[in-house]
């Protein structure tokens, strides 16, 4: 009778905890290597070369980087193995002593400042340029033109902006069914129970993250080569980005539902599909609707931007007049875009309020 033998729970507990700690420790090694390598490389390139040696052109060689990387690997492995490192602290396996506390604080502070200084140098911030007489003159010229819009192109602009709104709407609506399907498949709480579904979840997350990390404007460049410049390319690029980013939002809504009803329906002996349909779906319909309307609003703005690279609509028109330096016409287009975005923003906020 196996169930009657003494159950060594302490072994199981120890094993579970050890496994968790081991996983965290491996993560900590990688994270520390990253932190240290980052700190060294930023220090060498942005501070040592730029500030101490005052070089304009930075030398670059893979050999040098490899050496720095090896150094950081050695340092960080030594550091992590003492369990006083920053990554250990972040992953919650650090020793609780004074040395760990101070090293973490100092190193964290160092990382932040290094990043800030490097950012300052890279963007070549120069307050002088902003307020120089020439700069002011240029700004004055452009603002004067923008505030005296040219109304002769009003009809054309109106047509273009309607095209943009419809393009955005179509991209949102067409992507909806696939977005919903993807969101269920990439919701952790629905997929974690089974190894196969968990693998699908994991794979989908990676793909969606990749697709989402490319902004619509980059997709627009790809599609304008693929299907030709115009509204269709714009719509395709918005659609693909909408799917990826809304699938994420939706799946987060699914992950954030109240688990109570799920438990209750599961307890009645219902199957997986019934659980999702009766306990999950009723809880997410409104958030989904709200996100979708919000996404349309976002897509109208995005459609304007992707128009700049040939996605059709008001954006394409804007870039044409900008290229001809017809600033008064540009002024009218900008005002119309602002107006439409403001109205969309207001309307979508009102609709979302009404839903809840």
């Amino acid at each position: 009778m196996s169930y009657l033998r003494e159950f060594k729970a302490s072994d199981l507990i120890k094993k579970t905890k050890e496994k968790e700690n081991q996983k965290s420790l491996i993560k900590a090694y990688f994270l520390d290597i990253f932190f240290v390598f980052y700190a060294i490389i930023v220090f060498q390139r942005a501070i040592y070369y730029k500030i101490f040696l005052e070089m304009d052109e930075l030398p670059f060689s893979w050999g040098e980087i490899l050496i720095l990387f090896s150094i950081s690997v050695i340092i960080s492995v030594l550091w992590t193995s003492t369990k006083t490192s920053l990554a250990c602290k972040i992953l919650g396996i650090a020793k609780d002593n004074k040395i760990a506390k101070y090293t973490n604080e100092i190193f964290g502070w160092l990382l932040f400042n290094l990043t800030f200084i490097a950012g300052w140098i890279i963007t070549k911030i120069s307050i002088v340029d902003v307020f120089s007489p020439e700069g002011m003159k240029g700004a004055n010229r452009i603002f004067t033109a923008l505030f005296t819009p040219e109304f002769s192109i009003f009809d054309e602009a109106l047509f273009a902006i309607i095209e943009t709104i419809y393009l955005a709407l179509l991209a949102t609506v067409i992507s909806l069914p696939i977005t919903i399907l993807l969101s269920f498949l990439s919701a952790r709480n629905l997929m974690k129970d089974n190894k196969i579904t968990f693998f699908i979840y994991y794979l989908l997350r990676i793909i969606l993250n990749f697709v989402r990390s490319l902004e619509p404007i980059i997709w627009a460049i790809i599609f304008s080569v693929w299907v030709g410049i115009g509204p269709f390319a714009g719509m395709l690029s918005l659609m693909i980005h909408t799917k990826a980013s809304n699938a994420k939002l939706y799946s987060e809504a699914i992950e954030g539902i109240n688990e109570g009803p799920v438990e209750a329906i599961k307890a009645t002996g219902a199957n997986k599909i019934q659980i999702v349909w009766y306990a999950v779906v009723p809880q997410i319909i409104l958030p989904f609707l709200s996100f979708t309307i919000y996404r349309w609003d976002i897509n109208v703005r995005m459609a304007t931007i992707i128009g700049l690279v040939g996605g059709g609509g008001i954006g394409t028109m804007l870039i044409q007049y900008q290229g001809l330096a017809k600033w008064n016409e540009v002024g009218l287009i900008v005002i119309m875009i602002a107006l439409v975005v403001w109205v969309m923003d207001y309307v979508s906020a009102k609709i979302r309020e009404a839903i809840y």
Partner: protein
Amino acid sequence: MSKNILEIQNLHKVYNNGTHALKGVSFEVEEGEFLVVIGLSGSGKSTLLRCINRLHEPSHGKIEFFKKDITHIKGKELRNIQKQIGMVFQHFNLIPRKTVLENVLTGRLASISTWNSLIGNFPQTVIDDAYRCLEIVGISEKAHVRADSLSGGQQQRVAIARSLMQHPKLLLADEPVASLDPATSNSVMQYFEKINKELGTTIICNLHFLSLVRRYATRVIALKAGQIVFQGLPNEIDEKWFKEIYGEEAMEVEIK
């Protein structure tokens, strides 16, 4: 002769975070009993109930339901057992934005084909049964009201009706009155008593208040840190046992 419908032997539960919630719990439940489980929060009461209907996976030990080992069954076999065990929760766990009737009907999902449940096609006999269950808990006039617009006590009665839809052989109740006021608590407990006495349903119920335990329980189990420290009749819990179960600091609170 009454017979055991549930036998639990040496049940352990260790959660993934390392918490050892149940440490070798063994007991039996006879048909028709109103068994009450008491103990402090965190003593393992909820875990125990969730292991019985397998919402949680036991780590070790054995659970027999009608002499059938259900400790590690899976899939359809598990759903078939869950179908026979009703459960009522502390926070009611009704589906918001759905009517009372729709909520009660979900109790019968396990007997409906997946397709019919997707299009919401419940046979008339099932709908009639839902009204009957609502009548048992005296709330049939609210059938078409949205469940989240009801008061706490009414919601819990709907949840009871939902579990009755399963025609359960065993009804589990996880602190069913812990989020209700005293008067409502009593009325909800009376429905459990009615189900136990009139329908003959066996009930295992987690409770906090000893006065409720004394009034409704036919037998009591006390859990402390995952182990059974007391088994017996409700009136056997005297001052000494009370302090043993709830700690020296505890004071008994009356609930009328």
